[in-house]
């Protein structure tokens, strides 16, 4: 049994320590906002926060999550009030939306570290893939979110 702290709540799961955190979040805890994309930590659809930092949960063993604070898209805010969520709505960023929870979590982690990112900072940090190609709206929304955060 592995004890976790997910979105501020304690949870205990019966899983092999090598199980990717993504599987535990979706299958054990029913937190399906985090998506499976590539399964090789490349696309970023499965991004969550561990102790505030962005992590690709398809490549993060649940055994390493013990005693650490996990935040998923469901726990980013209780009422969509996080600056990134507000900017995403303001700029109508998503198209199909599949990648967007991972995208939002990646951007939230970036802004926590770099509150006023340049375009170069965004290029270096936000490598998530959006197959609808919403990249220009994403970039604009990141700058908008940075303004909301000030």
């Amino acid at each position, binding site marked *: 049994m592995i004890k976790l702290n997910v979105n501020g709540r304690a949870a205990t799961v019966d899983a092999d320590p*090598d*199980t*990717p955190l993504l599987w535990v979040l979706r299958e054990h805890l029913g937190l399906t906002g985090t998506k499976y994309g590539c*399964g*090789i*930590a*490349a696309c970023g659809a499965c*991004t969550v926060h561990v102790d505030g*930092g*962005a*992590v*690709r949960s*398809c*490549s*993060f*063993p649940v055994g*390493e999550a013990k005693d650490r604070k996990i935040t998923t898209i469901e726990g980013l805010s209780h009422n969509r009030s996080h600056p990134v969520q507000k900017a995403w709505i303001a700029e109508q960023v998503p198209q199909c939306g599949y990648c967007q929870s991972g995208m939002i979590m*990646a*951007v939230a*982690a*970036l*802004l926590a*570290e*770099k509150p006023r*990112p340049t375009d170069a*900072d965004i*290029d*270096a*940090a*936000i*490598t998530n893939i959006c197959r609808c190609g919403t990249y220009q709206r994403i970039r604009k929304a990141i700058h908008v979110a940075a303004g909301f955060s000030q």
Partner: protein
Amino acid sequence: MSKDKSVPAIRQLCVGMAVSIVIATGAVVSVQNAAAQNRLEEGREEFRQMATVLQHPRCMNCHVRADFPRQGDDRRRHSMNVTRGPADRGAPGLHCSTCHQSSNQAASGVPGAPDWHLAPLRMAWDGLSAGELCRALLDPARGGMKPNQFIPHFQTGLVRWAFSPGAGPHGEMRNAPAVPYERFMALTREWVERGAPCPDQ
């Protein structure tokens, strides 16, 4: 009379002994020099074998003279625009630890080891011969390590990872250096004990 006759004989004996001592000392020094030279040459050969590990892609891909890591045996640029970042641990918001954890991940094929990060630019090894690499390691401005610090560094999880690099996302095993870890450590100990001599080339 007899006393007078003995003086040249004693003098001759002393001169003979002195010459013998000089010759013997010279021979000893010569043998010592030859032994020291052998010792240095053995040390240089040990480093040449160590260099086959240090110059392997598992080490070189992160001891890179670029603002990004490399990957694979072909040393291609790391996928997904991954960059070095200000502290050699990736860009703000996309650190090495976003994808690389403390062990190899079987499910994703992403490699991992404790404290996964790039070597600083001053420790870049691209394009160095074995001799140049050796001198770089010992140069305080580049490697910055004294000979007795190599053993603890080579015992870290990140260095040990190179010898157990795991499988990639399609199940293919990554190549490890041809020299096994225990042999590499023995070579390092012997090289350090011989004074850490560097090959010319």
